[in-house]
């Protein structure tokens, strides 16, 4: 994951984007991008070492960042920059890191000495600070995320004709089929009274992302106002059920933004994705949480993951494998109890018996495990 994802996790993608501008900070400085990539991936990226920079410098602040000591990483980078104030790459790295931890004013100050090739940093910081008049001239429409920021900034300022024009340019440059672009155009159509067009555009947005609250809500409202009231109300009801799930997802993602090194934060994201039906993403986040988990955190994470596999896919074997792997890493009676329960529910009592036995070995006085084991043995004997 690029550093961008962290820096601008304050701007979650899709439905939950606060101001509608998901950002892919693809122009992130290499070292910082590597830092982020290294943070969520066990493979240490080669690009962490920039020309002219000591291995110790980069590796030290990278290590700090990777282990969640982000302020210390920034302090180390700041110190290094004080010694090498002409190092633009380091300066850009620092500014990006500062943005990542919501030191936006500091990032802006850091980036001040950078050339126009780093306008992206400045523009992003100004946008985050809602200094739209200053951000607008520096936003680069060639980047989709900046184009979306531009449209949003113009809209927020009420400069709607300009926002419309920027939206049209963004569509030509980046393609029309983007949820945010479609939703913007749909809102404008709705405001202009062209409800048929609004319905069409919101429908396309919704088809692109079925959990985008803006698309779903906009479509519902447009239908209601188009005298297709019952259809619209049905969608608005769907939206009402979806919003708390998206809010929870948003909330969890922001926790990851603040500290991506905590397993429980990723597990919360995974749970929220599960609730939203984003099963692949949920599986990924559960696996990430599992990798990051400290011993005490492991069982709760894996239990939730296992439940998802069963609920969503009926994958009992997959769930049992997860639980078994976790047990191998850090034995916890709950893991084997759950494995046994899953197997019992699947009619595989003979497979459940050894699981319960392992659990009982850890908690020999636990009557509930005793009872489970007894029942499994009886079922297996039949």
């Amino acid at each position, binding site marked *: 994951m690029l550093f961008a994802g962290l820096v601008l996790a304050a701007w979650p993608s899709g439905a939950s984007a606060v101001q509608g501008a998901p950002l892919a900070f693809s122009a992130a400085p290499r070292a910082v991008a590597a830092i982020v990539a290294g943070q969520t991936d066990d493979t240490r990226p080669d690009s962490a070492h920039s020309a002219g920079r000591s291995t110790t410098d980069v590796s030290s602040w990278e290590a700090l960042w990777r282990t969640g000591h982000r302020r210390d990483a920034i302090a180390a980078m700041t110190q290094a920059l004080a010694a090498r104030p002409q190092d633009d790459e380091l300066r850009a790295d620092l500014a990006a890191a500062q943005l990542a931890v919501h*030191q936006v004013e500091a990032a802006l100050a850091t980036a001040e000495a950078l050339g126009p090739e780093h306008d992206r940093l400045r523009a992003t910081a100004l946008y985050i600070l809602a200094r739209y008049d200053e951000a607008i001239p520096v936003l680069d429409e060639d980047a989709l995320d900046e184009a979306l920021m531009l449209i949003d900034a113009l809209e927020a300022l009420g400069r709607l004709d300009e926002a419309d024009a920027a939206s049209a340019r963004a569509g030509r440059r980046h393609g029309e089929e983007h949820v945010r672009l479609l939703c913007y155009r749909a809102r404008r159509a709705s405001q202009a009274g062209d409800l048929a067009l609004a319905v069409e555009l919101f429908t396309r947005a919704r088809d692109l992302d079925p959990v985008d*609250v803006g698309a779903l809500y906009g479509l519902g409202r447009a239908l209601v106002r188009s005298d297709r009231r019952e259809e619209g109300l049905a969608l608005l009801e769907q939206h009402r059920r979806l*919003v708390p799930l998206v809010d929870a997802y948003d909330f969890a993602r*922001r926790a990851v933004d603040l500290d991506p090194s*905590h397993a429980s934060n990723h597990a919360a994201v995974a749970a929220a994705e599960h609730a939203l039906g984003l099963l692949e993403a949920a599986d990924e986040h559960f696996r990430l949480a599992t990798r990051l988990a400290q011993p005490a955190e492991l069982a709760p994470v894996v239990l939730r993951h296992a439940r998802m596999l069963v609920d969503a896919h009926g994958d009992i074997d997959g769930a049992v494998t997860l639980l078994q792997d976790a047990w191998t890493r850090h034995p916890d009676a709950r893991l084997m109890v759950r494995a046994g329960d899953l197997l019992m529910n699947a009619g595989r009592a003979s497979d459940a018996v050894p699981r319960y036995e392992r659990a009982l070995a850890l908690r020999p006085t636990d009557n509930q495990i005793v009872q489970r084991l007894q029942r499994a043995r009886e079922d297996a004997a039949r």
Partner: protein
Amino acid sequence: MRPAIAPLHALTLWTALACAACGDDSTPTGPRAIDPAAERGGSTESRRGAWFTDVSRQAGLDFTHDAGMTDERHLPETMGAGAVLADLDADGDLDLYLVQSGPVPVQGTRTAPATNRLYLNDGSGRFEEATARSGAAAHDGYGMGVVAGDVDADGDLDLFVTNWGPDVLLLNDGRAAFEAADAPNLADPRWTTGATFFDADGDDDLDLFVTGYVHFDPHDPIWCGEREPGYRSYCHPDTYDGIPDRFYRNDGRGVFSEATAAAGLATPPDAPGKGLGVIAGDFDGDGSLDLYVANDSVANRLWINRGDGTFEDGTLLSGTGVNGRGMTEAGMGLATGDVDGDGDIDLFVTNFDDESNTLYRNEGGGLFSDGTVAAGLEAPSRRPVGFGTVLFDADADGDLDLAVANGHIIHNVELYDDGKTHAQVAQFFVNDGGGVFAEATAAAGDLSARPVVGRGLYAGDLDGDGDPDLLLTECNGPARLLRNDGPPGGRAGESLHLDGLPAGTRVVATTTGGRRLVREAGTQVSYLGGSSSGVILGLGTSGDAVRRLELLVPGREGRDLELSPARARGRLRFLDGPDGLRLP
């Protein structure tokens, strides 16, 4: 769903309210703005050319809110408390009742009791503290909000105070001495916040709606924020389960019975809401009073009155539950009024940072649209955290201007986001007459002179000079009385005041110049409190005057009044008796 909580999770720096605080001397960084004038209770002279002047000291107002800060960072410490501007001693001017919070009631003990305070107006905007002789109004619960209304129809204004803890109904003896009503069913021990008196069923008495916020246990504190000295902060409301609102029906004598479910106002068990404010208004123009509830971080709710005092959930159809992009927002302060001059009641809600405040434009027929961008209110409100708000005719030109009290929740927000501050500047916007606002904060004088942790903001003619003044309350800080000195370099128009109208009365004033001004009498709740319930009709400077009043009291036949001669200034005090409304 309760998200997994890592030590850092709470500090979401966007819409999420992770941490909340109201001023804390122990923060290692981010000191509150200090202003010697503020410490003395107000400036000694008005700013030249400024709209509002802090006259707290000379007016005799010396109230400082005490949030009862603790190291455990209990969420109630962040809320501030409300106030009400009302004629509590029935002498024709607006008095002040300010709610105090005080020591957090943890472990059953409270040190140094802090009471709510009553200030009586001498008619000229000078106040004498009268708490000592106010009886039970010297209430010492951990106060949240207050609302005033004549619940027992004896001609004086009573008070209902919400607390984090048992609420209390205070009955007025007519001379601003109060006794606590014997009403154990109203002593809701939960964390209640906003409240409003309104005639739900058109039977000429005031019923009561009270919002419930969240279930919070101070004996089970959760750590939110980084685990480093000075970094502990307040948890996001998402951490806690919401609690349902309650509705009480008045029997006409000030005796209330709980009727939430019977009135159709019960919320689903899995979505009780997290109410911070409620306002009554005729949002669908059918002559009965509806309710709008601002819920923190979950969808707001619009309850449509069927006309008989029972309600149905009109949120989905109305479009007022979320913003125009389908997103829930924080939802703290509330104001209603005909912002765009089209004759119906619009709705304004203040929200958190990285959200804008939201103006819901009434399109008629119970439908609203998000008009925030078109009104010029989107960009200016995305960074501040908005709380108390008033729609009021600051320059008496006949349209409704807007003021918002701002202030963050997170006392140490600067540690987590260097672009944000705990204390924030209040904002002021002037209406162009068509519902488009231009920010005039720079001209607002002492209203916006320095950052404060703003919470309540209430409007009323406190000095009797005809224009609406402001009361600004601060979380863990001094309340400020701001005299309206009119537009800098210009002059305010003439205005006609209407007093004594029953709450919810719809007023349509036709002027000699052909204008139609639509207003609703009754308390504007702002945040946790209430502005003056009277109506001020601004008439500008061109000699316009009111020649006709159409008055529609909920549940009654409309009443038209021709004014001959037409009135351009002064005060009309209505009497409401067996024969309806009349002027003496």
